[in-house]
């Protein structure tokens, strides 16, 4: 079992999606304890990927491959987890998108992928998302957090409008807001009353965990 856990972590660390899928299937075939394999195997691997990224040891393709391997393993384990009545601790539901007027997509998609690989539920609204839709979806799906990307100084004010709309609907206490994108920084997040700013996908995982965790 210990060897199996090590292999699961290693598959994610190496971004080996085929091996991760194979090990996920083996977990089911051998009836290994699901929560333990996820937590001490795959999750351990993706956390190490995040740590090595922050350290500057990994470069972007390796980060992406690690996240993809994690997602593929979880796609196999998740249905078994649910049908078996297991309760995996969800990190929280995040509604994510690029604000209206802005069609930059790839950075936001990377953040969504890393959040998903780290156990967050994700509702990715895509790019050019109107303020009302962010709030409607977050309210309707009872999301814990809204993550808003803006790549232009001209579209950044939309992030503030989302917070204002949450305020208007008295949802601000319940739904956290995190922001990102090239022109954003900590000061901007503070100025508009967001709960935080993340400079990259790994930082976004840590930030989302912090703000949702309270």
């Amino acid at each position, binding site marked *: 079992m210990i060897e199996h856990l090590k292999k699961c972590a290693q598959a994610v660390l190496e971004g080996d999606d085929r091996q991760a899928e194979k090990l996920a299937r083996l977990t089911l075939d051998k009836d290994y304890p699901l929560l333990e394999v996820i937590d001490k195997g795959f999750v351990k691997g993706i956390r190490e990927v995040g740590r090595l*990224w922050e350290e*500057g*040891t*990994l*470069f*972007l*393709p*390796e*980060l*992406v*491959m690690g*996240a*993809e391997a994690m997602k593929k393993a979880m796609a196999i384990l998740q249905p078994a987890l649910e049908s078996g009545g297991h309760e995996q601790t969800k990190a929280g539901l995040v509604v994510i998108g690029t604000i209206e*007027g*802005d*069609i*930059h*997509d*790839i950075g936001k*998609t*990377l953040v969504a*992928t890393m959040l998903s690989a780290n156990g967050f539920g994700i509702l990715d609204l895509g790019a050019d998302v109107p303020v009302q839709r962010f709030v409607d979806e977050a309210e309707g799906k009872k999301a814990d957090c809204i993550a808003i990307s803006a790549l*232009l*100084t*001209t*579209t950044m004010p939309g992030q503030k409008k989302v917070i204002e709309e949450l305020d208007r609907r008295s949802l601000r206490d319940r739904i956290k807001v995190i922001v990102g994108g090239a022109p954003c920084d900590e000061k901007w997040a503070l100025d508009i009353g967001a709960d935080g700013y993340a400079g990259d996908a790994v930082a976004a995982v840590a930030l989302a965990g912090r703000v949702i965790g309270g």
Partner: protein
Amino acid sequence: MEPVILDKFSVKIAANEVIRYLENGKRASSGQIKRFQGVLDLSLDRAGVLVRPRGIYVIAPGKSLPGSSLFRELERMAFCVCTIGPALEKEVKRLMDRDQLLEAVILDAAGSVAAEAVASHIDGIFKEQAAAEGLKTSCRASPGYGDWDVGEQKSLFALLPAGRIGVELSPSCMMIPRKSISFAVHIDRNPVRLRSENSCENCDLDICPFRITDR
């Protein structure tokens, strides 16, 4: 003042530049690069097919930029909008939709390098033309950098009919296709240093991971 359209040229997408876009503060080792060599090569091949370089420019006095006073004192400027076209970003979107994020990320980086190469190619033409007259050019300045407000994209697009090369401006001043670059250079015996210059050689941030250097 008649705009000139350039559409019969090609650009080289340098693999080392694509890698630079994917790095994370440190240089990727040869072992790391080797792991992705196959996807990188495929992306460069794909980009070679998908990139369609085009540019439109006008040589005009600085004061001819409508509604802008930024360059009004400068006698001779080149104003340009250029693009790699929409095909590459459509392919990136298709790859993302199919959950092929690795391929999407690398192709997107190749597109960024290609757009920069298109702008450099046209900038090179301005340099050659200036040199033929014993003049020089400043480094490129772009709306959204330094003191040139991104809102002045509207001025640039009022001066240049960029729709003729397939580039439109959104209400939020974003160029569509996204892999497009707008810029201006000053042409003079002693060109000024534009505060909105976006060139690495004029930037003091030596440790910037995006700095263009010889590898």
